């Protein structure tokens, strides 16, 4: 296993970071936050369209570039660093892997090339966005009808719902699980919710006896939780990478501030209490980041029990890291850290919101412990 980026990966990373430093700079993120949309449509059309980032996640057989988990993590890390308000994670880390995991050939061919071309953004209506296994509680019920299916139920929080052109909806069909796609005009109700983290959209999805055609069911036959475990792991990994990137972003904000601010006749960066706190965060960042890319490499090789544990490990570390980096940012900024005008609060809110998605650090540690004690050997 080689954890050093190759030339192509380095290039992707540098270009992505350069682009977002310019196009998702603080003022731009603030416009999105102030507008209350949680979505920067202009930025998304550049990312999905001109830059073709979505194509990287789509296999070549479906007109994509078929790049791996490491590249996915690289893009998410870059997006996190600038709190890019786009449905990138939903589309390439949640939507595409879910389609690849359960959709029929026909359904893949219908959606994946359009995703690769940047024509559509995707959201996934996980039954429980807060659980390590977000498909564990699916409240949507499907019934077969003569013309197709009827969907009923409500999903309380769907990330990027309004921004998405297609919503993937896991539903219970009798004893089985089935996956449905709703395009914009399908007749479901979308309600934008006001969010703590203004850089990521959340919506409520309601279907009241919604009649859909047979083709909107994507899976080629019922699937189980096991079939989608790899897709969930990819979503977890992408989220962890995004968290690590956001930690980098907020730490750089802090480092720049402490280098400028003068008290007691010296910059506050020269106080050892300040230096040590920054240094400790830097060590933790390196740790979480190494785990993200290590887990990306093992996930690329296939999903085993160990891989799932590593992905959980990456999430546990990344969630803690981002929260601490952003709370330290507020603290080390002093009074201005408490203002709307300075950036720390943007990261702080993202930190809390992201930490709650797909399992808290404690949930992930519990999964790891179960793996160690109930399933087999430890290290």
């Amino acid at each position, binding site marked *: *296993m*080689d*954890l*050093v*980026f190759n030339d192509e990966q*380095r290039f992707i990373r540098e270009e992505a970071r350069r682009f977002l430093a310019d196009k998702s700079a603080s003022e731009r993120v603030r416009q999105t936050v102030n507008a209350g949309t949680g979505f920067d449509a202009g930025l998304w059309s550049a990312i999905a369209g001109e830059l073709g980032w979505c194509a990287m996640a789509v296999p070549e057989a479906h007109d994509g570039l078929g790049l791996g988990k490491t590249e996915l993590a690289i893009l998410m890390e870059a997006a996190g660093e600038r709190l890019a308000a786009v449905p990138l994670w939903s589309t390439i880390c949640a939507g595409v892997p879910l389609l690849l995991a359960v959709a029929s050939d026909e359904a893949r061919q219908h959606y994946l090339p359009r995703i690769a071309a940047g024509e559509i953004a995707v959201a996934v209506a996980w039954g429980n966005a807060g659980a390590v296994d977000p498909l564990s509680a699916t409240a949507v019920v499907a019934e077969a009808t003569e013309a197709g299916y009827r969907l009923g139920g409500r999903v309380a929080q769907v990330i990027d719902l309004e921004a998405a052109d297609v919503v993937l909806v896991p539903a219970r069909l009798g004893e089985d699980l089935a996956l449905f796609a709703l395009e914009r005009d399908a007749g479901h109700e979308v309600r934008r919710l006001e969010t703590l983290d203004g850089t990521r959209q959340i919506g409520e999805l309601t279907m009241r006896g919604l009649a859909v055609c047979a083709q909107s069911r994507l899976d080629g036959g019922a699937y189980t939780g096991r079939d989608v475990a790899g897709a969930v792991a990819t979503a977890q990994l992408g989220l962890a990478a995004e968290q690590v990137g956001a930690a980098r972003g907020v730490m750089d904000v802090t*480092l720049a501030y*402490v*280098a400028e601010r003068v008290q007691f006749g*010296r*910059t506050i*960066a*020269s106080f*050892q209490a*300040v*230096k*040590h706190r*920054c*240094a*400790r965060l*830097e*060590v933790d960042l*390196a*740790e*979480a*980041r*190494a*785990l993200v*890319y*290590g887990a990306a490499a093992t996930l690329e090789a296939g999903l085993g029990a160990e891989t799932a*544990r*590593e992905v959980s*490990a990456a999430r*546990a*570390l990344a969630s803690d890291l981002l929260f601490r980096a952003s709370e330290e940012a507020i603290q080390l900024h002093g009074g201005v850290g408490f203002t709307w005008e300075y950036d720390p609060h943007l990261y702080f809110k993202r930190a809390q919101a992201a930490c709650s998605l797909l399992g808290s650090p*404690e949930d992930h*540690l*519990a999964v*790891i*412990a179960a793996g*160690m*004690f109930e399933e087999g*050997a*430890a*290290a």
Partner: protein
Amino acid sequence: MSADTLTQLRTEVRAWMADHLRGRFEPLRYRGNAGDGDAFPELRKEWERELAAGRWTCPGWPEEHGGRGLSVAEQVVFQEEYGIAGGPGRMGHIGEGLMGPTLIAFGTQEQKDRFLPGIRAGTEYWCQGYSEPSAGSDLGNIRTRARQDPSTGDWHVSGQKVWTSLAHLSDWIFVLARCEEGSVGRNGLVFLLMPLDQPGVEVQPIRQIGGGAEFNSVFLDDAVAKPEHVVGKPGEGWKIAMALLGFERGISTLGQQMAFAQELDLICAIARENGASRSPAMRQRIAKAWVGLRAMRYLAMRVLSEDTSEEARRERLGYKYHWSNWHRDLGKLAMDVMGTEANLVGGDLRRERLQQLFLFSRADTIYGGTNEIQLNLIAEQGLGMPREPRGGLG
């Protein structure tokens, strides 16, 4: 490097260790690591010679100096297998990992010819004479004086070294001393190689928290170093001393990780037996230890790579802080898992091993740069923050 070569090497080392680390060497398993350096000293020296006979000392040295010229990846395999087999802490570590590479890089031909074979063969042992009572974290505050006799060219050295690991079991010491009168800090130092067995040298063991005495005070009273035993030029001592520390890039800590993994396994086994594994709080802590160990493994792979990126540079600076604190926390976890059982000593080998872990891991965050010094380095060299001001006292 093909995966095949690595697998072949792995098989070879594994077989060799299984063949040799047994019989009279059996008691050495898992012993003699940092903090436990004075365990079974004579037997561990014999073990060094056993390794030497198998050409497993100094495998990373170039072949022209008697090594195997193993690549980093191959050395990692060797260290991992050594650790998995429970190979004891290396008595020859300072010679092999620090002195040898320094001589290979900076030594004269005569120095290489004189000293490298003894290190390789496990017949001459080295210790490190840097720290002094007034020069710990502030290593530049060295007071030991070296004066050259103009008639003989000999260096006469007086002063005190302290915390010198294994000095009582070593033959040679490398000493950082002040050779220019009135010089301060990093200037005016000389790097000398000195035999310990001479009239001006007295070694006094210091009892440690584990009860044993791995480190010592070394009193130098007009002790002599030969003119041909200066490494680099007089006045360049700091440069050589720092380069020596730079050779410790962490390959040996990879072997250490295998031992860490076994320690965690042992903790899990005990937790299963005594029911600690059913406590939600304990499970969280154990899971956290697993997470830290996994991260360490990937971090080590990045640290040992040839990556020259800014991230890699910062990761290298932070690696010691990460592993040493992880390991220290593991020691506490081990004791907490054992509960009141851990209050009793003797009798139970597994318990003893974890009690040693608890005590010895306290040294991890002190030697080789304390936690606080590591954080200073990360902040200053990694994050470009201002340097610590120097005070006016001693």
